[in-house]
């Protein structure tokens, strides 16, 4: 690693005379080629970002409908009820959300939030925009594959959206699409789901290959592995997870497609009865097989959701504490360990399937082991705060809130990882609260932090600080109002996926044996539905300042004074603002690690990675250490 630095071809100045460079540098390539069918990683990153934010908002809207139905079972949805009936027909008759529609909303909320919202935003949007800049690359390795990746994602998203309007509505079998349920529901929603997923899987496959190849091949001279900003490491590991964990789901999707279309019995057991009738199938299949293949993706997917978010938080904490991140090497080895271990914990989602106690014990052990590197990562962030002169700007507030929120999500996962306590908590609101704490106030807060942090690089202006703070405090308070009570409900035994929030179930149990027996839900527990619903509404209101801020600040935000407004050390701030096609206007050569803040004796409190060693220091023997 030491001696190879000199062998790189010299940086080529941006020039226009390359015949095979179909993009050129002039602005005459037209609107379509510049903004719609662009091969520029920055434009693709922004495309991903805007599309994913729209899907996040849409997924949020589905959730509001579900919360209304849970809080007021059987009442028509106010204001938009008639609109729903017009758009969706029978499932929303008289503006009331039917159980079938509720199931669709649940399945699609999960699918959209995970596969169309957070992963594209955390991995594809930030990764596309920031990673090539951070490593000093001109673009991604395969720009046209990159464009195809976004298009596949877009088509996949469209298919998912269209499925709401087909007869019978969208998929109803949950985002996990467990067979045989997913095969026996007599509508075509599941078919759309599978085809949509195949597009999304292809998209993330192309993205993952591109990211890994870019990080391996296009690092600037001197950018050794241990000089990579930790955000790049997280994206690198995330890309590997996507590359290797998604294909088994694709295999499973192919088999479920065969079950649905060619009437095979991959996941359908012998003697399966549908609607009281013995199904006309050959049988012999295994429902557990679907669950294994699904969770082989499903659990690594959790780390796809969280690792890029941690990477963003790392950059912002280092930048705003003005000191090096604590334990860089521990962070690197931890993220590698998490990436590896994430492949061998999947069956902790399946303790209740009867797969056997020995298998449960194995997966319980690996699940406990994977919490170790996760805790190391979080601990490094906490220790990094110690003794820093912290700048409390909006990105930093979100990054700081990420730490305890993700902490709550992570720690409440431990009882779920032990198969004994999981028997009680499995499929209750407790698990809903747990993974939402990881993903909603966890990952999404980090993503907000990233938007506020890199916005000046994309537009040349800051986002409004005051409204940023309104957005932050509103989100922080109401996230907790929404999700904290769910822990209580879950521990009281309230199951997820009941379209009336457990009203009928409770009434039936309580009428038999009086209130508060095991299995029944007390009035106190049931009454929590109302504050959760209003908390969710207020959480929605708290996002309005953000949405306006994003668009308003493009024209009216405070202008940045130079290309490096946060006084950051990493390379993405060494470009013009916004970066032109080809990114850098001068040669990028890296001489130091990513977090050299407040180096004693240095004139400023930050030393950019491309700043050469001072001439008075010891004679240069090697450019890399």
């Amino acid at each position, binding site marked *: 690693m030491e001696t190879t630095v000199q062998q790189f071809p010299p940086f080529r100045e*941006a020039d226009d005379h390359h015949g095979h460079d179909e993009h050129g540098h002039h602005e005459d390539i037209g609107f379509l080629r510049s903004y719609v069918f662009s091969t520029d990683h920055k434009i693709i990153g922004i495309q991903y970002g805007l599309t994913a934010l729209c899907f996040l908002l849409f997924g949020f809207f589905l959730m509001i409908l579900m919360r209304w139905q849970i809080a007021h079972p059987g009442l028509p949805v106010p204001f938009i009820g008639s609109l729903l009936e017009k758009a969706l027909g029978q499932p929303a008759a008289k503006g009331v959300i039917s159980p079938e529609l509720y199931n669709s909303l649940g399945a699609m909320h999960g699918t959209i939030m995970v596969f169309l919202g957070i992963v594209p935003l955390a991995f594809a949007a930030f990764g596309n925009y920031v990673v090539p800049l951070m490593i000093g690359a001109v673009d991604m*390795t395969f720009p046209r594959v990159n464009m195809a990746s976004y298009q596949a994602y877009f088509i996949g998203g469209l298919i998912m959206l269209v499925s709401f309007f087909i007869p019978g509505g969208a998929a109803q079998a949950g985002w996990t699409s467990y067979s045989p349920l997913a095969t026996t529901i007599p509508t075509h929603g599941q078919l759309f789901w599978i085809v949509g997923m195949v597009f999304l899987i292809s998209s993330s496959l192309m993205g993952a290959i591109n990211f890994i*190849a870019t990080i391996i091949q296009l690092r600037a001279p001197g950018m050794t592995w241990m000089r990579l900003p930790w955000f790049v490491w997280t994206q690198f590991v995330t890309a590997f997870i996507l590359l290797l964990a*998604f294909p*088994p789901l694709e*295999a499973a999707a*192919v088999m479920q497609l065969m079950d649905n279309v060619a009437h095979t019995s991959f996941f359908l057991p012998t003697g399966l009865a549908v609607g009281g009738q013995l199904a006309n*199938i050959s049988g*012999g299949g295994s429902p557990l*097989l679907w669950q294994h293949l699904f969770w082989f993706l499903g659990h690594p997917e959790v780390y796809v959701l969280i690792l890029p978010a941690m990477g963003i938080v790392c950059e912002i904490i280092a930048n705003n504490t003005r000191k090096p991140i604590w334990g860089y090497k521990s962070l690197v080895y931890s993220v590698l360990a998490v990436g590896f271990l994430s492949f061998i914990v999947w069956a902790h989602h399946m303790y209740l399937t009867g797969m056997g106690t020995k298998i449960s014990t194995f997966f319980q052990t690996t699940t406990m082991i994977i919490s170790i590197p996760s805790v190391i990562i979080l601990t490094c962030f906490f220790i990094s705060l110690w003794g820093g002169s912290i700048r409390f700007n909006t990105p930093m507030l979100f990054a700081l809130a990420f730490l305890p929120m993700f902490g709550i999500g992570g720690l409440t996962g431990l009882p779920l990882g032990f198969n004994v306590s999981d028997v009680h908590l499995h499929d209750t609101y407790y698990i809903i609260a747990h993974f939402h704490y990881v993903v909603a106030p966890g990952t999404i807060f980090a993503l907000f932090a990233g938007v506020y942090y890199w916005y000046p690089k994309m537009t040349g202006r800051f986002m409004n600080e005051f409204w940023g703070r309104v957005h932050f405090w509103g989100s922080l308070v109401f996230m907790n109002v929404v999700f904290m009570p769910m822990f209580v409900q879950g521990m009281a035994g309230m199951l997820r996926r009941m379209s009336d929030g457990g009203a009928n179930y409770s009434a039936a149990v309580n009428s038999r044996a009086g209130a508060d027996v095991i299995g029944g839900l007390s009035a106190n527990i049931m009454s929590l539905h109302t504050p959760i619903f209003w908390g969710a509404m207020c959480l929605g209101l708290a996002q309005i300042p953000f949405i306006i801020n994003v668009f308003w600040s493009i024209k009216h935000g405070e202008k940045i004074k130079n290309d490096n407004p946060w006084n950051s050390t990493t390379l993405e701030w060494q470009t013009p603002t916004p970066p032109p096609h080809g990114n850098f206007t001068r040669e990028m050569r890296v001489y130091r690690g990513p977090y050299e803040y407040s180096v004693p004796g240095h004139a400023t409190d930050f030393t950019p990675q491309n700043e050469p060693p001072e001439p008075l220091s010891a004679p240069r023997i090697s450019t890399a250490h």
Partner: protein
Amino acid sequence: MDIPYTVQPRPDIGLYNAKLGIWLFLASEVMLFGGLFSAYILLRVGAAPGYWPHGWLNVWLGTLNTIILALSAITTLLAWVACKVGHFGKFKFFHACTLALALSFLCVKMYEYHDKWIHYEIKLNDGTFADGHMRENDPAKDYVKIEGRIVNDETLLYDLRSQGKIKMEELEIPRSKIVSMQNYGPWHNTFLAIYFTLTGLHALHIIGGSIVIGYLWGPGSKLWKKDPERFTNRIEVSGLFWHFVDLVWIFLFPVLYLT
């Protein structure tokens, strides 16, 4: 703007971009087929006793296809070598062979699929099973004609390997005796389901690879004049994919045909 290492390998990595890309893609392909192979294992160990088929596929045809793909791997390699040493004509010849071999593989596969498609298991109302290839199935007539046999025990239809040479004869079965009738499609049982899925996905890979190789052999070969090094890289990358597809078959053949 030039993206570095599109043709020359990066010195400290030793790979050019596309070669790294194809290796990563193949890693994901390993996981894709890995998922299906693990499905095969779970379905096989979960099958009811006596109901996992043995000897349903023609080993000779499988061997023939194995040889065809092995030959195509050799011609692919030779095509790349021909590019490396600058013999464009030889490249054309060898990759024409690759394409011809790919086509013959698909023909053999299609024959095998067809053979299963016209193979019927017929449940009769006296508790016996007629099994064989459909010869006449005219809805207007009140009988069907198959070339096959009638057995008392259904598991006899599953283990063909232990029965030695099975005598087939032309049978005329009146429709009134038929309880149910099903051909050996993917719906027939989980073995055929995984057989059609695995070999179908593999055949799709053969078709995809043939399209890419066909493009590089035909219109895509114009690049040879402009940038022979880059063209050679393309032949190498598409060749790597082709070798992977061959390798999948090396696993499919014993798993499906020989066990």
